């Protein structure tokens, strides 16, 4: 891992950093942020609504608890109502057993302060995960030494190949900007059959849970752009920073909205890392 720093070594040799005060503009109006996840596993199904705040505002995040939230199954008259759950500070389906079904299309509807926000998504079939393996690896270029997990499976789809893997290490989600693992079929999907190595070193004794999501393109693009923004340093080599393109639209009312509506199957696997005996 030390070697990766050589790339920035020459640059950093003549660069310095310091914290500065910079006058920034403030938000004009109220901007809601909607995070909606709709899967085939009840645990993941929720809608969070918060408000964006001014950059230097140190107050706690404002959670919107008075919105009306529901999901419509397109082509039917069925709607799945949500309620605000004080424990999770998010909206959960009234019926906990309500989940997404492969092949169905859904429309998220959020009514708040006279505005109506909507978004659509299709529940795609999940890929196949056969097994997880792990092995100890010495330090390599761009990777520290440690135990590395490989995911073996099959992705038999010719289109809509947009995936995300989340890794939970000992009950803690790996959520640094370096931790995002998003992939599509730009470089093919054979690597999934031959074993996709998760890009994190683990230690013996770790309990690791992997969650695999298959998303619609619009939500995949949202996360790709989010990662790009998190890595945008505002320098000459970065594109002009922009908010990720939300797949939620303001159906009625004014202002803007941020966030995403993700419809996805979820595959989970857990593995315990045991020390290898040489």
């Amino acid at each position: 891992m030390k070697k990766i720093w050589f790339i920035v070594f020459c640059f950093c040799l003549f660069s310095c950093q310091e914290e500065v005060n910079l006058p920034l503009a403030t938000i004009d109006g109220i901007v809601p942020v909607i995070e909606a996840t709709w899967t085939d596993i009840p645990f993941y199904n929720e809608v969070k609504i918060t408000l964006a705040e001014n950059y230097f505002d140190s107050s706690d995040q404002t959670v919107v608890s008075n919105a009306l939230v529901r999901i419509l199954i397109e082509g039917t008259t069925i709607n799945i109502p949500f309620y605000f759950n004080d424990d999770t500070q998010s909206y959960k389906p009234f019926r906990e057993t309500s989940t997404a079904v492969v092949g169905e299309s859904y429309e998220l509807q959020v009514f708040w302060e006279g505005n109506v926000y909507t978004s659509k998504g299709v529940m795609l079939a999940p890929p196949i995960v056969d097994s997880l393996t792990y092995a100890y690896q010495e330090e390599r270029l761009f990777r520290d030494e440690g135990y590395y997990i490989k995911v073996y499976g099959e992705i038999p789809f010719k289109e809509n190949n947009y995936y995300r893997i989340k890794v939970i290490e000992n009950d803690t989600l790996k959520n640094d900007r370096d931790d995002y693992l998003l992939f599509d079929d730009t470089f093919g999907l054979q690597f999934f059959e031959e074993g996709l190595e998760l890009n994190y070193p683990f230690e013996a004794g770790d309990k690791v849970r992997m969650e695999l999501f298959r998303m619609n393109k619009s939500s995949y693009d949202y996360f790709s752009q989010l990662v790009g923004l998190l890595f945008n340093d505002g320098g000459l080599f970065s594109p002009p920073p922009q908010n990720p393109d939300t797949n939620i639209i303001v159906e009625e009312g004014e202002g803007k909205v941020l966030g995403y509506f993700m419809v996805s199957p979820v595959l989970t696997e857990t593995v315990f890392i045991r020390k290898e005996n040489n």
Partner: protein
Amino acid sequence: MQLFRSLSNVLFVWVLFGVTGTLFAQSDEFFTGVVLDASNSDPLIGANVYWEDNLNSGVVTDLDGKFKLKKRVLPSRLVVSYLGFEKSIRNITVNEAEKEIRFFLKPSELSLEEIIIQERRPDEQVKNLETGKASIPIETIKNIPALFGEVDLLRSLQLLPGVQTAGEGTTGLFVRGGSADQNLVQVDGAPVFNPSHFFGFFSVFSPDALDQVDLYKGNMPASYGGRLSSLIDVSLKEGNNEQIHGEGGIGSISSRFMLDGPLFSDKSTFAISGRRTYADLFLKLSSNEDIKNNKLNFHDLSAKFSFRLGEKDKITLSSYEGSDFLGLDEQFGLGWRNWVTSSKWSHTISENSFFDLESYHSRYNYKVEFDDPDAGFTWENKLSESGMKGQWSWINSDKIQTYWGFQSQLYHFSPIALDPAGGSAIQPIATNPKNGFLNSVFAGGLVELSPRLSTEFGLRWSLYHQVGKGVDYFYEGGAPTDEAEITDSVSFGRLKPMHFYQGLEPRVAFRFLVNDEFSIKAAYNRNYQYVQIASNSSAGLPVDRWILSGKYMDPLRSDQISLGVFRNFNQNKWELSVETYAKDIRNTIDLKNGASVLFTDQVETEILSGDGYAYGVEFLLRKNVGKTTGWLAYTYSRTWRTIEGISLGQRYNPRYDRPNDVTLVLNHEFSPSWSAGLTFVYTTGQAVSFPIGTYEVDNQVVPLYSDYRNEDRFPDYHRMDASITWKNPDKGRKWRGSWNFSVYNLYGRKNPFAYEFREVINDKINYDPDVDGPVVSRKQSVVMTYLFTFLPSITYNFQF
């Protein structure tokens, strides 16, 4: 002045030969020698040669710089003198007097200044018809204080009015509101795709190899075309035809060397030069294995050969090759390389008519290699342009000059190829090639309508074909949007026409001479551009995606009008110019949010297109003569873009819109040994987007940006650089060495390179909870990165 002095000397020699020719009979009583200019080995005509203790013994050198002097009791001291050169006094022994002695006179420091001036006529800026053209003599460029002491052509051009920089330390040029890919950088007529090293921090040109640089800020003659904003026309130095001459330098990060001289005979010459960095040599000295096994270097090589074939023909061959390489531990490598080759045949048809034929080939390639058992790959791409240009020129009368010609250019952009290494699980990628064939015919002339009014006019007609091999895609709904499905595709065979664009590019300029020191000029010109870079970062990267005009990509077009007043003062010692311009740009491109263009074969789905405009006024006060030279420039300029899909379709400023720009360049010679240079730069900060808020999504605190692009500004940029040069005029007859000590950013201004908007933990910008301990506080903050505060460097330069 120099010309007048030379003519006077010739006349004097001629008269002297006429009177004393009979004295040059061969005899043992005489010995012979030749007097040459030490800087270029040219013969010095009319130099005085005499015995020190007998002033009346003197003779003068002939047209070849030779002399014949009657011997006397030896050893004796011989004096050789010539106006504008340092006197040479040598003790001549009996043995020396038996063979021809060569004397090399060094130009005196005063005349060095005047030699520089000879590169431009003193009244050139007033009398010529060119507007928006700027030149910096190579000698001046060498005297400008430089980053790391590396004399840099493109960074020097950034000091001219109307030329902006993308940011600290970079060599990218933004001329009169145009983007960096709208500049045509050519070496001896051949374009250079990527004229920078080290990701843009240095330009590819070694200063010793250069003869001349002209910058056309949009108002190009009709014989040039292909880019909207500027032409940077670089000429490599030709060798002298007398003797081997060398020069070079040993600097803080690189060394360079140049050698030139006659090749086989005095009818042909050569000049070769090279430069290489040695950062990687220092890395090898490290005891740290992580540093030791890495590589980081660049080099430049250039060569120019010229051949005179009789009195009417001359052929020159030029080549430049330069490359960069970054290697990590034998496992990862990134390299890129420019290689251009050109030839030129100059033929004098008659006393008043001339013909020039140029041909060239320019190639750029990059390669990325990653050696990994699971995900190893090789990723490479090649771009090339081959061309030929012929031009006939006539001096029709003392008031009319005309020319016409043709130019053919073939662009070939190879498929972007990503090949997995053996055992790698990733699949190969290969895009389709892109080819373009651009043919242009042009004609123009220069007419003196009256003693005061002159005009230069021209018309260029460019005819562009996108040709096979290639593939066109058809999209649902007809437009190549990100969401639209591909409904069909058509493949084209080699050189099969795919799409055609053409455009007339009129160019016209007028000069009204108010008096010998004051003129008014106006110009209009239109340019088309058929090739550009699909990128939305301000600094170029070696792997940038170049695209050609095609089915979904209209050619760029610009129309520029300019008006200027030009005034010289104090017998042309001072030049003042004020130029204004307005430019309209069509079909400029930008990338969509999150666009990915590096590996796709459907680049058109990632691109947005629109229009733009720019305007400005440029002031330049320049002094070219005397102990103190330099210039003061001020530019007020604005540039705007309007592209549907960006900034809600409203106009916005590109990052390089920097309204106020002040530059001061000074050079002063204190004595023959000591000189100093000073540069001061002030510009408005770059146009950027700062966040207006934050929000939480996906367990991340994310900065929130306005929908309007680049409404904020970096703080104003300013910087002062200084240098001192010391040279020892007495060190040897031919070897001339000098030491240059320079400081970049003299007063340590912290000019921002970037701002990061992120969370700061425990009030420490680099706090890592995993390493440094528990988190006590978190806050949203702004972290500024800045480069190069007070950066000294030292360089030893030499000539022989």
